[in-house]
């Protein structure tokens, strides 16, 4: 089975800070990691490979340093890695990003299944996975928490909903986005890390993937970011004191005044 995993390198969320002046993410000195949700996609891909044979290709669009995320993925059991990187991609929104990734996927030698994390921990849009399937015109199932059955023709998966889960059958090739309930990602292995160190990462530009230049980067992005801001922190509450009945009466009055 040919499996593709799309990943993103994101700032480690444990130390994200926002520049109060520009309202943008401070990336300087912040460690970059594989998007935590993508780690589940990598693990699921490697498990599918271990069960069914085949190979796992890990793909990312990003700056040159995103190579580190790809190497880490190889250390975790992926076989091949492709970095799609070009200045022309700068300013891509989720539409342009998914177009770019779809172009790169078309250049790979075929696939049975594409796995993505449900969303990235920095942008939180959850749009790139579905976008890729749209550009490739293949079925998609989002928020997958279990692949119950799979062969080279079709898959039956459990799709998480707020109330429980749906059982969905889809023909292959398809794209799945996965949630953290799907597995527990393994720890890296030393031999995997050694392999990763010497692994060759393919680097593809906009020309290599034969993308339409007008559909790339800022120009290819219909989304316009008007403003990014940090919401005002919630103000501290007011403590009422006194007997329970007095406090209850006072609270009712206050709620009336607030006209909720």
């Amino acid at each position, binding site marked *: 089975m040919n499996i593709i995993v799309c990943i993103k390198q994101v700032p480690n969320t444990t130390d994200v800070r926002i520049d109060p002046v520009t309202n943008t993410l401070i990336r300087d000195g912040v460690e970059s990691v594989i998007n935590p949700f993508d780690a589940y996609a990598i693990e699921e891909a490697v498990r599918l490979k271990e069960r069914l044979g085949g190979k796992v290709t890990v793909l990312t669009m990003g700056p040159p340093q995103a190579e580190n995320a790809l190497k880490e993925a190889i250390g975790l059991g992926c076989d091949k890695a492709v970095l799609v990187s070009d200045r022309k991609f700068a300013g891509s929104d989720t539409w342009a990003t998914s177009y770019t990734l779809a172009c790169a996927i078309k250049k790979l030698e075929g696939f049975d299944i594409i796995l993505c994390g449900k969303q990235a921990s920095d942008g939180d849009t959850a749009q790139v996975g579905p976008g890729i399937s749209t550009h490739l015109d293949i079925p998609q199932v989002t928020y997958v928490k279990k692949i119950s059955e799979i062969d080279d023709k079709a898959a039956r998966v459990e799709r998480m909903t707020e109330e429980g889960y749906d059982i969905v059958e889809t023909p292959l090739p398809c794209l799945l986005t996965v949630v953290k309930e799907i597995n527990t990602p*393994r*720890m*890296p*292995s*030393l*031999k995997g*890390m*050694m392999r990763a160190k010497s692994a060759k990462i393919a680097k593809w530009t906009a020309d290599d993937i034969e993308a339409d230049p007008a559909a790339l980067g800022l120009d290819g992005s219909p989304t316009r970011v008007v403003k990014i801001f940090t919401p005002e922190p919630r103000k501290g509450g007011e403590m009422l004191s006194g007997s329970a009945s007095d406090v209850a009466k006072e609270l009712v009055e206050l709620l009336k005044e607030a006209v909720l």
Partner: protein
Amino acid sequence: MLTEQQTMVRDLARKIAREKIKPVAAHYDETEEFAWPIMKILGDSDLFGVHLPEQYGGLGGGILDMCLVTEELSRACAGIALGFAGTGLGALPILLHGSEEQKKKYLPDIAKGKRLAAFCLTEAEAGSDAGAIKTTARKEGDKYIINGTKQWITNAGEAEIYTVIALSDKAKGIRGASAFIVEKGAKGMDFGKKEKKMGIRASATREVIFTDCEVPAANLISREGMGFIVAMKTLDTSRPGVAAQAVGIAQGALDHALDYSRTRVQFGQPISSFQAVGHMLADMGTQVEAARALAYSVARLVDSGAKSVSKESAMAKLFASDTAMKVAVDAVQIMGGYGYMRDYPVEKYMRDAKITQIYEGTNQIQRNVIAANMIKETLQK
């Protein structure tokens, strides 16, 4: 100071300790279960093979690599770390003295963590006086028949590969000792009840009982009569590992005490701002660093292929284990009542630290070894 590979080994061990062991350390300490899920992770991550040669599935590192893993794991839980370190110890006789066939047969599984190992020397009447062992191995055709009981064997019952020291020629006393590989499941091999311990409770400690236990003659390590030499060489090589375990315990206890001292407020300020506490922390930090430096330097000496490391490895074990005990006691002291409560993790470090002064040769025996070697060196001058 560390090579790129050693840094990678240490960082991965640290990551596993932090993310996988730390959250379950209290659970395994309380239940005394053997942490098989953690052993699986260590195996899959290739950590069991860091010090084993590449041709046997290892990563080609040395004792220092093994020490780095032991230290990092012990920082989270010395009991769980012992599943790893005890396997390292049990595999050493094969690594140091085994035949090519024996290495090929056993080391790859050990490197992968597929099978754990254990070292069987101690008996009820042979603790510090290891030369007093009574277990016998009688040759019959192409087999040895082992009889006797080994006591307080780390990983016993869980491990599948046991290296056992037994007397193949009782008349020669300890010069008649030989080392054998016994696989779990061998006819006539049984395990005693699991011991209840003060600390390292996640580690399995049992008797290994041999009753007319048949072992193929091919499982003899080295030659007949080499058993005690194999045992001593094994312990000389592994002692930096005990030192590393002690350093890990000390560092773990210090980590907790330091965190606590910065958040615990008394008299309107964090207790770390009181000189009495600050100086304790400074001493603890200095002692841990000194113990680590000694442990690493002796591990490097072992890895350099030095002919005799008895004195130095005894020094590392002695100093690091005394440091672990002292630092763990001080960590409890800094945390006061909280330190004494079992809902907080430092009392466990204090219980775990104690064993490092006792096993693989009590610290009194280490001092005997050190003094004897020092005196011998003067005579040689």
